[in-house]
């Protein structure tokens, strides 16, 4: 099959980008989208041109490295599918396809279709962890967890941090990502001691990174390759509101009220 690609080319974060048209000829419908780009890049290299830079790692849909806005949809036309698991049979011969990077101020373009998602790492560092003591693995049933809560925690933990939620959100909000991390830890007993501080710290970091706010469009859930439900954002909001309302009490309990 033959396709016409409109690809965003940008040398680095400082320089302005532009769309460049490429012909992807003799593409097998069994190729993945990234393999199609590999073939195109080999031809570009043979012609002495600069290949198109794109992020990828495992190519089996579980690492969260890849991600391109394909024809106006993050990760392309197939639902619950990362860009690497999208195959060319999802397109028709002769299609014109537009490729753009995730567009958000918090995700500056490094080159072409690669963006810097360190903002997500800083949000995780702000509170997306449990301060559990290091030691041997605990006994499987030492801490009972309700089946429903375990399932919800697992659903949230499937987030691979690809950033498609930010890319698809009309507000470039990272709410779904942060909500997934807060729900993942908040549904488990190990996450309880730091639950309130986690909500405050992670939301504060999310805001500081310059992401937009949630207006409940639901675009994030639609493009999420792991199908993280947008309802988790309500859990994040509930935790954040509760944490804000009870902050004074926790400060008093810590004895900081008299010290400060």
């Amino acid at each position, binding site marked *: 099959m033959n396709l016409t690609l*409109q690809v965003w080319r940008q040398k680095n974060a400082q320089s302005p*980008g532009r*769309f460049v048209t490429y012909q992807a000829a003799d593409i097998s419908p069994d190729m993945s989208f990234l393999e199609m780009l590999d073939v195109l890049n080999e031809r570009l290299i043979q012609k002495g041109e600069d290949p198109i830079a794109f992020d990828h790692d495992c190519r089996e849909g579980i690492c969260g490295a890849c991600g391109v*806005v394909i*024809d*106006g*949809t993050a990760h392309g036309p197939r639902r619950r599918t990362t860009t690497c698991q999208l195959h060319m049979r999802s397109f028709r011969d002769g299609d014109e396809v*537009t490729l*753009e990077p995730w*567009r*958000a*101020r*918090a995700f500056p373009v490094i080159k072409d279709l690669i963006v810097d998602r360190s903002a997500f790492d800083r949000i995780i560092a702000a509170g997306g962890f449990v301060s559990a003591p290091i030691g041997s693995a605990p006994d499987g049933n030492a801490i009972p967890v309700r089946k429903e809560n375990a399932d919800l925690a697992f659903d949230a933990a499937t987030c691979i941090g690809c950033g498609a939620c930010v890319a*698809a959100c*009309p*507000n*470039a*909000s990272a709410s779904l990502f942060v909500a997934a991390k807060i729900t993942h830890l908040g549904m488990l007993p190990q996450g309880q001691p730091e639950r309130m501080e986690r909500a405050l710290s992670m*939301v*504060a970091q*999310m*805001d500081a990174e*310059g*992401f*937009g*706010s*949630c*207006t*409940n*469009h*639901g*675009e994030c*859930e*639609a*493009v999420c390759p792991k199908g993280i*439900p*947008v*309802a988790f*954002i*309500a*859990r*994040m*909001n*509930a*935790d*954040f*509101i*509760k944490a*804000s309302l009870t*902050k*004074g009490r926790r400060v008093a309990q810590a004895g900081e009220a008299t010290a400060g």
Partner: protein
Amino acid sequence: MTHALGFFRSTIGKKVVMAVTGLILFGFVLGHMIGNLQVYLGPEALNAYALWLRELLHGGGLWIARSVLLASVVLHIWSATSLTLESRAARPIAYRKWEPQASTYASRTMRWSGVILLAFVIYHLMHFTFGNAHPDFVEGDVYHNFVAGFRVLPVALFYIVANVLLGLHLRHGVWSMLRTLGLAHPRYMRFAQGGAALFAAVVVLGNVSFPIAVLAGIVP
């Protein structure tokens, strides 16, 4: 105090302000519509209702309501403006191509419907409360002002368009408020969304019936 300010500076805190003030405004638009339904009972009923509102709590009730509503409107606009500017700044370069997957017309036009509704509310106050935008305003004769006001066709059409926009605003706003406040269990979400659509439909149908009833001669 610093932590309270921190809450209102956060995106979620501003959304909570939007949701709570929105809830107050939902209550108002519903009550306003239901109160005005008394126009169908004739001039005496409507004018007596208007007088009752004016004399409630020795005249204080009206001003308490007005103060709460004004504060709600100001805070609602403040949070909306602040969040909109932040969201605009969050995506400096727009997509060349963007296909909506899940968002609705109502959700995508919240900012536009909000701005147009503000203009409508200002006009509405000048039309029926202050009377300076009314062709034949008689202080205290609400029924007369109502009928004379809606006999002007462009005005009646503007009211109908503004109320359809109000319906879209409520359609997204009512259930969106619940999720913002953290009340969004998936099991009840469809009831919340259905309830929002029903609430919006009831308010719009009630309000739109007024200019239509006057133009059709049902309310003489």
